[in-house]
């Protein structure tokens, strides 16, 4: 009896690794691989309603060609124009930085062929991205959905992270009433995104919204955010920041609560000031969580769709349209192939940025 029990338990012990990971992997596999393959096929085909049903015709890369060089090019990539001097300056700085990084990598002791190829590819694609940004954001150019999405992601995440970190640092202090603040700060995250989009449509209304007296006083009574490209984008970004700062806040708060206080107290006793303890002790401790947080938020932020859809309907023109909204609009027009192609372009962009981020930044942080 005892022997059998013992055998069983040693076997369970040996299987432990698989028992822990397999359920999650299987569930994700079940619902992930299948849609991935189907949408890939859709993106390579044209969907059409015919008598008595529909027809899916294989068209090769035509949908992608349309996005990158065909009729959808200005919509997707944007209208190019010669960059301003400032734009050229940005290009010069970025190119110099990337070249410096490459040279440093080649001179470092532990470079490998795979690492080198990866870095060259990353440098090339990143340079291409900067080139696109500079050309479409110049005064005469017009950013397409891919550039607009990137603006939402980068501005949104930077602001959300800094705000979230600041608020988390404020609320870990032993202040009376901090529990009240913690709960209140979480509230925006709990509203359904569709609801937030409608709420902000009420709030940004310059005629009937609550801030109407302010707009009146500023002489903007008849101005509508929605008619100015940057005004409309700002409205979308403000709503996004309002909604997602709490997410950064709560994860950073949990990370800060988990840090070891003894180190900080020891440093304070030794005469370090607040800034030094934050920079040398707290920050390194929360960096791994921060990099994960930013990666997750980045992936989610690239899929922003409810806010621009409800707030501005993508307008004026296509100024606030994100890539997912672009895909959604094509999808509504029953261009399933085109929609899937945009989705796959988004997947390429996010995968590239995500992999570069994980390999170049996250791993370094985790090893440090």
């Amino acid at each position, binding site marked *: 009896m005892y022997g059998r029990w013992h055998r069983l338990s040693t076997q369970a012990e040996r299987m432990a690794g698989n028992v822990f990971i397999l359920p999650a992997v299987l*569930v994700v596999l079940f619902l992930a691989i299948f849609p991935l393959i189907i949408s890939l096929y859709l993106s390579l085909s044209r969907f059409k309603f015919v008598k008595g049903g529909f027809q899916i015709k294989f068209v090769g890369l035509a949908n992608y060609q349309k996005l990158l060089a065909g009729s959808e090019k200005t919509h997707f990539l944007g209208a190019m124009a010669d960059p301003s001097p400032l734009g050229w300056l940005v290009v010069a700085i970025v190119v110099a930085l990337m070249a410096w990084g490459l040279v440093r990598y080649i001179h470092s002791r532990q470079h490998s062929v795979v690492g080198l190829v990866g870095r060259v590819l990353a440098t090339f694609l990143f340079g291409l991205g900067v080139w696109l940004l500079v050309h479409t954001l110049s005064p005469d150019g017009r950013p397409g959905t891919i550039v607009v999405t990137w603006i939402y992601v980068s501005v949104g995440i930077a602001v959300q992270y800094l705000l979230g970190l600041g608020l988390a640092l404020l609320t870990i202090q032993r202040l009376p009433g901090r529990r009240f603040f913690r709960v209140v700060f979480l*509230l*925006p995250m709990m509203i359904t995104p569709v609801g937030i989009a409608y709420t902000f449509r*009420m709030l940004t209304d310059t005629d009937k919204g609550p801030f109407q007296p302010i707009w009146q006083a500023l002489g903007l009574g008849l101005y509508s955010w929605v008619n100015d490209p940057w005004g409309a984008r700002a409205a979308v970004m403000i709503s996004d920041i*309002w909604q997602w700062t709490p997410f950064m806040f709560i994860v950073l708060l949990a990370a800060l609560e988990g840090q070891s206080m003894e180190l900080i107290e020891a440093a304070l006793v030794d005469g370090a000031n607040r800034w030094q303890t934050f920079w040398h002790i707290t920050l390194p401790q929360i960096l791994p969580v921060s990099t994960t947080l930013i990666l997750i938020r980045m992936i989610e932020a690239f899929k922003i*769709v409810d806010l621009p859809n409800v707030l501005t309907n993508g307008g004026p023109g296509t100024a606030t349209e994100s890539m997912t909204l672009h895909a959604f609009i094509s999808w509504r027009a029953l261009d399933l192939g085109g929609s899937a192609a945009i989705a796959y372009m988004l997947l390429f962009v996010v995968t590239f940025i*995500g992999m570069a981020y994980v390999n170049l930044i996250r791993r370094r942080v985790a090893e440090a």
Partner: protein
Amino acid sequence: MVRFLFQRKSLSAPSPAGMALSYLALGIWTLVALFPLYWLLVTSFKLPIDVNMGPFYLPGIDFKPSLHAWEYILVGDLSNDTTRNYINTVVVAPLSAGLALLLGTGAAYGLTRFQYQPRLGAILTFIGCLVLAIFAITLGAPWQIALVASAVLFIILLQTVGRRFKRSLANNDIAFWLISQRMLPPVAVVIPIYVLFQRLNLLDTRVALIITYLATNLPIVVWLMRDYFQTIPFELEECAAIDGASRYRIFWSIVLPLSVPGLVATFLFVLVFAWNEYLLALFLSGARSQTLPLTVAAQNATRGPQWWYMSVLILIMIVPVIAIAIALERYIARGLLVGAIKG
């Protein structure tokens, strides 16, 4: 006198001046966070004419509050819809979040404490067989037969060809693969998932929503919890292992209690995500399994958005989540780790 302002009572308590500044900053952000909610509350008591005639701020002072929207949603024409969708949301969100936390935490623990080496050849064979199965199903073969046939093919190939490929992946690759499943926007994912559940006869059921949310939330749980497990020192587990505790026991009675703050934060986030999800629910649910976000969006009718109804719905939607957040907030408390190491 001035020095008193900057003196701290103890090392971790802020000075009076620092406290004042902290309260100022906290107060400003409280205003920012609460004002939209206040506006929703005010709007929910307004008659349509009060909304359309320009901004009114204080019920009872610059407009006469009315309960018409609350009546319409809670006891009037829409009450049946509201109740049904409310129950659906209450069932779907916590269940999927709980399951995601359960499976995801296990996977996260595995990824930080074990070395996995899945062989690349096996994975590619698997995907190949899956593609074949899908292809066969789209050509009209019954899905049971197609699945069994491809499973058999997979095992045969794995035993013969698959062994030749020795190249394997590492934990980081598995983690990145998991998170990469969230990169495709739902617009692209939704049609295949719709077809999948149609084939399984699960369309318009809560089960379909629970499974979908579980799969979409798992990667987030894995990634967030992985970082928490990395901050938990190995020494404790080594001690327990030497004392003869099994892996499961170590996980259950040492690692999990130590990561309560992380678990709570992660659970809250996943719960909120499932509670509020809109697009997938729109496609996967018909009349029976609709969730509340659909009801909110449905108030944007042909006559334009019905702000007053929307406000009521949004408000009754967030009340339970706030209650959960208040209940769980105290578990995100300091000092759990510190004590454990010392003892």
